[in-house]
């Protein structure tokens, strides 16, 4: 997997800390999507219908964590006897294989020092989501448009458009929370 497969820019909603990363159909169970959320690359994972989101930057040496392999914890009651626990809930960094718990961001390599930033994820109905108004500190205009390619500035012209009601289920990442200590 290439280092940077960032699929798109997330659309800001409500207060500017919550961002729509796609519909539930975009990230079916067992898959993931790395998306630019408010300037940060975040990977959103669907593990058997549960959603987890972590920063796409490994706290070890900065590797693109979310392009690593998904696995579980390997436990061995005896040398040579292996069992996998919590399959799919562990992400292994593609560079050096450090493992992080997708649920908590916790590293089990140097647990007292290292964890990856995790974010709350929820699924909400399109009807409840309101696009954020770009403001001083809020996301830029380009960031609020899910179709805008990164780095492009909007032109002055706009075609006439019509409101369409949205009722699908959307996955929302909340980047406003404090970093867990």
């Amino acid at each position: 997997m290439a280092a940077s497969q960032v699929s798109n820019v997330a659309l800001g909603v409500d207060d500017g800390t919550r961002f729509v990363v796609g519909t539930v159909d975009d990230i079916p169970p067992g898959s993931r999507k790395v998306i630019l959320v408010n300037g940060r690359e975040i990977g959103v994972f669907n593990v058997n219908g549960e959603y987890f989101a972590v920063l796409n930057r490994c706290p070890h040496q900065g590797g693109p964590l979310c392009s690593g392999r998904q696995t579980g914890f390997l436990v061995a009651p005896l040398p040579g006897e292996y069992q996998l626990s919590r399959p799919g809930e562990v992400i292994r960094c593609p560079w050096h294989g450090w493992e992080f718990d997708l649920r908590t961001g916790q590293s089990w390599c140097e647990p007292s020092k290292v964890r990856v930033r995790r974010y709350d994820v929820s699924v909400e109905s399109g009807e409840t989501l309101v696009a954020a108004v770009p403001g001083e500190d809020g996301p830029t205009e380009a960031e609020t448009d899910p179709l805008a390619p990164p780095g492009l500035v909007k032109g002055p012209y706009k075609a006439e458009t019509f409101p369409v009601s949205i009722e699908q289920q959307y996955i929302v990442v909340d980047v406003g929370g404090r970093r867990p200590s």
Partner: protein
Amino acid sequence: MLGRWSYSGTNYPKESPNAARVDSWPPAGGPPGSNLPFLREQLLDEWGIDIAINNPLFHSAVQRHPHYTAALARAINEWQIGEWTDPEPRIKASICVPQEEGDLAAAEIDRLGDDPNFVQILLVIRGAEPLGRRRYWPIYEAAVRHNLPIGIHFGGQGGNPLTGTGWPSYYIEDHTGMAQSFQGQLTSLIFEGVFEQFPTLRVCLIEGGFAWLPTLMWRMDAAYKRLHEEVPHLKKLPSEYIRDHIWLSTQPMEEPFKPHQFTQLLRHGTLADRLIFATDYPHWDFDAPDQALPKTKLPEEFEQKLFFQNALDFYGERLLPRVRG
């Protein structure tokens, strides 16, 4: 494994086939490190690397059949010119040689020794015998003839167990234990008199760690004081040969429990002037140039030496990009 032809090397560690970074497999196909555009993007451009040195570890060094191992080495060298150094001036090549066949190795060095695409002769650390032995001297003679340094890289099989106590069970033992091979080879090069015979020879130990060097120097000098009669061909203290002839690469970076101990280590012996930064790309234990050093105050100018000057001292002017056309 003797006689194998495959590039695939080891499949360990688990989940990192080819011992490669999971993200280093080129999207266009082929094994890690086989695709120039992808390597440019993922390595050279990503970190603004001006000069990178290829160390192809295709087992050309340790095949049993003398002419096959020579042909394989020659083919890899031609491939390096055609696929890497010709299209990309930031990449320099290492001359692969049939390591166990001193005369054939010397012939390959003579064939390419004056080609400015090549900056060193590549040996692997685990061959059939200790590298100080005379069967290898034609390689050193040819190196000196062309003023090419020797890089000795992690790897090789050679038929002997990794440790002096036998074959280990786990990859982690191999990975940790390789430093023993480096110490053994360095001891052999010194005491068998290679540097006395070839006073201009320069050697870089690649991917063998470096923190062990000061204590090995102490131990060798102490032993030499009592046992020097056994090696009357030596004219200097072992540590002096090391100071004059030996360079080392960083990867794997030594990571002391307390970062400031790294600085103490550099102050011992010659390390600050002899370490050359290495990434080990595309292997799984890759070091990112901006992240690999311990977070501590390093001696002044150390980074400039580590990322440039020490390599220039070792490789010489050949390292600098050629003006083409």
